[in-house]
């Protein structure tokens, strides 16, 4: 059994379009919420450049959520609790940026790289669903969404290329939080 096979077994919404749509909405909404959280945290730490970047990502995710909701209109969506949603890594939706990868002195380069990881995971998820779904409408829609995610990945890759890599001491702080007791 390949890794994809194992993941395919744990992914929800493969056989049911409304259930898949619930997953897709949760994926985008969770991503937006996390980006907002990260933006807020960066603002609190006066890292405005990265805050604005995360806020922009949150805006994109909300737009996508709205788009999926439009696609879902007319469908009778099941009421699934967050823990009933089934994702490849089982912990949280694949496009949700890792909270523990952030740092108050992170640069735009770090932020874009973090977002890129999330978007790639989003692409992988939709691709997995498209490949494994037994319901043709799910497979078609998931393939469309995977294409959209592929576009986001390409955009972020371009952004990342334009950004300078941070110096090795980017996390150095003249007044560190971990100062002596």
């Amino acid at each position, binding site marked *: 059994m390949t890794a994809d096979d194992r993941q395919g077994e744990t992914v929800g919404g493969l056989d049911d379009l409304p259930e898949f749509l619930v997953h897709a909405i949760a994926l985008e909404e969770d991503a937006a919420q996390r980006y907002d959280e990260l933006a807020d945290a960066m603002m*609190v730490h006066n890292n405005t450049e990265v805050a604005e970047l995360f806020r922009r990502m949150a805006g994109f995710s909300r737009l996508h959520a709205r788009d999926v909701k439009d696609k879902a209109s007319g469908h009778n969506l099941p009421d699934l*609790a*967050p*823990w009933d949603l089934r994702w490849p890594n089982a912990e949280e939706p694949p496009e949700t940026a890792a909270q*523990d990868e952030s740092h108050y002195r992170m640069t735009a380069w770090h932020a874009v790289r973090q977002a890129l990881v999330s978007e790639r995971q989003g692409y992988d998820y939709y691709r997995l669903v498209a490949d494994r779904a037994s319901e043709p409408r799910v497979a078609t829609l998931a393939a469309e969404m995977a294409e959209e995610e592929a576009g986001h990945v390409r955009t972020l890759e371009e952004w990342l290329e334009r950004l300078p890599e941070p110096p090795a001491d980017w996390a150095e702080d003249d007044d560190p*939080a971990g100062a002596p*007791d």
Partner: protein
Amino acid sequence: MTAPDTRTVTREAKHYKSDVKPVWCPGCGDFAVLTAITKALAQMGIAQEDTAVVTGIGCAARLPGYLNVYGLHGIHGRALPAATGLKLARPELTVLAAGGDGDGFSIGGNHFLHACRRNVDLVYIVMDNEVYGMTKGQASPTTEPDWSESRLTPQGPGVEPFHPLSLALISGANWIGRAFTGDPQTLTHMLVEAVNHPGLAFLHVLSPCVTYRPEQKDWKKTVRREAFTPTEDPVEAQRVLETDDGFNAGVLYHGRRPVYAPAPEATAGMADLDREFVL
């Protein structure tokens, strides 16, 4: 015409968040607890005005400010007595007490034992990062004996850490579980279970401190999800804890102890009390 019953309105997780932005360090595990609380409350459909979050002091204890429910950011280590009083006075409320490992197991350690023993129907969430974060990184009651990063304990605290789940179990908590902020879906689910279980529910949350304990980022590889099999038998739960290294997650114990009932209606009035104090 009757006023609309706002308690029947469907709520989303975002409705439980206040406009105050957390000052936690980016990457702090406590963000996941904040989100889990909002999702759990939304999922249960509990009205903001029927919910109270009570905390002591510390990074984790900032929670009430970030939530759009009733809250008390109180005295160091005293979240549980305040929460107990609130629940007894207003039993219809959903009361969550919360804080960190220092606030809960050191300054408030005695209250922890007796809140478990008393078994009032509330949830106690401890966000454990094994360090005093707000005061800049000193050893806490759950710090390993050889952790030597603090100048106060350059050779490490040299004493074995508390085992919070064992303490809760032997003290009488009616529901005991351990969650990890790196697994927010399960954390949310466990929080719902904790709220729904009668009596004192103790939710021990492994919540990494990225600033003073950056090595805790590795917890995502260390924590064993759903390692506990829930049991109603305290002896079995204790047996399981004998080999617990602190990284087993899941619901350990859900008991059937009677919940502490509010005192009956007062039989004496203020005049009676005044008479007792007459010299």
